[in-house]
């Protein structure tokens, strides 16, 4: 990783079908900051995040990223037939992260899935599946996080766990772009409101 992570969007615009979701959205994020993306349902938060991650093409504007990033969207990318550790290993291996087994076990313990370790993900609840995603955040060294509604289906303990992870990430010089309706504990450096 060369230098500090940086994430910048300049004059982004996006239309879906006939409707203009947003136009002229700009933001800058540097190491140690996180930005909360706010907006009503359907205002284009998800689309903005997908644009920034490079999954969706934006109508106009540019995105500048320096540093590895992980994107976690509405779909948790958890395979039903693999257990928590296998899912985690698979997600990390895909990004070329070589996490040793003890680290994976520790992360699973930390997110409270120790007793569910051997179950295939189809037998986990929605919140428990989300927690696998939290374990991934704990293990992946990517300095840039792009997270879409990370608190969906999580209980209070899950929420404070996420806040803890976000806090540690930002303190360690990472940055995060998070679409959320909640007021999270590490106060965001800035807020980005999109939609009318």
């Amino acid at each position, binding site marked *: 990783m060369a230098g500090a992570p940086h994430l910048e969007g300049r004059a982004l615009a996006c239309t879906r079908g006939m409707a203009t979701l947003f136009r002229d959205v700009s933001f800058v994020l540097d190491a140690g900051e996180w930005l909360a993306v706010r907006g009503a349902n359907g205002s284009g938060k998800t689309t903005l995040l997908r644009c920034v*991650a*490079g*999954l*969706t*093409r934006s109508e106009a504007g540019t995105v500048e990223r320096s540093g*590895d*990033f*992980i*994107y976690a*969207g*509405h*779909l*948790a*990318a*958890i*395979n*039903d*037939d*693999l257990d928590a550790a296998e899912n985690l290993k*698979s*997600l*990390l*291996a*895909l*990004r*070329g*992260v*070589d*996490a*040793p087994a*003890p*680290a994976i076990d*520790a*992360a699973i*313990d*930390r997110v409270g899935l120790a007793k569910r370790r051997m179950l295939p993900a189809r037998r986990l609840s929605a919140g428990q599946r989300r927690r696998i995603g939290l374990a991934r955040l*704990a*293990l*992946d*060294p*990517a300095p840039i996080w792009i997270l879409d509604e990370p608190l969906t289906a999580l209980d209070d303990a899950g929420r404070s766990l996420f806040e803890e992870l976000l806090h*540690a990430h930002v303190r360690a010089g990472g940055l995060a772009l998070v679409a959320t309706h909640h007021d999270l504990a590490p106060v965001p450096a800035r807020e980005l409101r999109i939609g009318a």
Partner: protein
Amino acid sequence: MNAVANAAPPIASSGSVGAGFGWSFVRDLTLAWRHPGETVLVVAFYALVASLFPLGVGAEPQLLARIGPGIIWVCALLAAFLSLPALFATDYADGMLEQMVLSPHPMPAWVAGKIVAHWVASGLPLTVLSPLLGLQYGLDTATLGTLALALLLGTPILSLLGAACSALTLGARGGGMLLALLALPLFVPVLIFGAGAADAAASGLGAAPHLSLLGAGLILAAMAVPFAIAAAIRIALD
């Protein structure tokens, strides 16, 4: 609480063709191994349908030997088609496909890994089983060998073309039917040269031209299809 942070720092590496291919190949084979039912279903369908024809058309040895290779090819083609709809759809539905697109590995690499895994779990068993089914049609040894060889070259083409169609129909409603309409016509050349090879061998003409054409088709498809699929997946996710 902080055990995770201290438990040996994970290392992120940059992407590579080999790592991307290996990742998806191992993952898909693991999943296929977890659920052998799907492979068993494909093979059972293949064996069953191929065994129904002799019962249907009567036990005339000459007729059976004449139509055998063609029927086995059609059955292999339909059986290979059975497992195609789920090839990308599962990963698409659970969000894994997004993560794969965002991974540092080149897209054609992991796409190729998925296709090879699909072939190992469907095309390869069909090929291995074909001499056994050929015996039901009273095919001679030379024809059986040619049939198996033609399937060995042809079934990977089916996996490649089928995967391309599967990627094109991602997110479409009624994707399964659409996939059939899209993929089956594309399989026609493979069927013609594949069944033609065994026919030529049976009539003593030599199957080399047919097999060469199948081989050429395989090389062409293997070079072009992973790139086409990468483009199709990008469109589906956009």
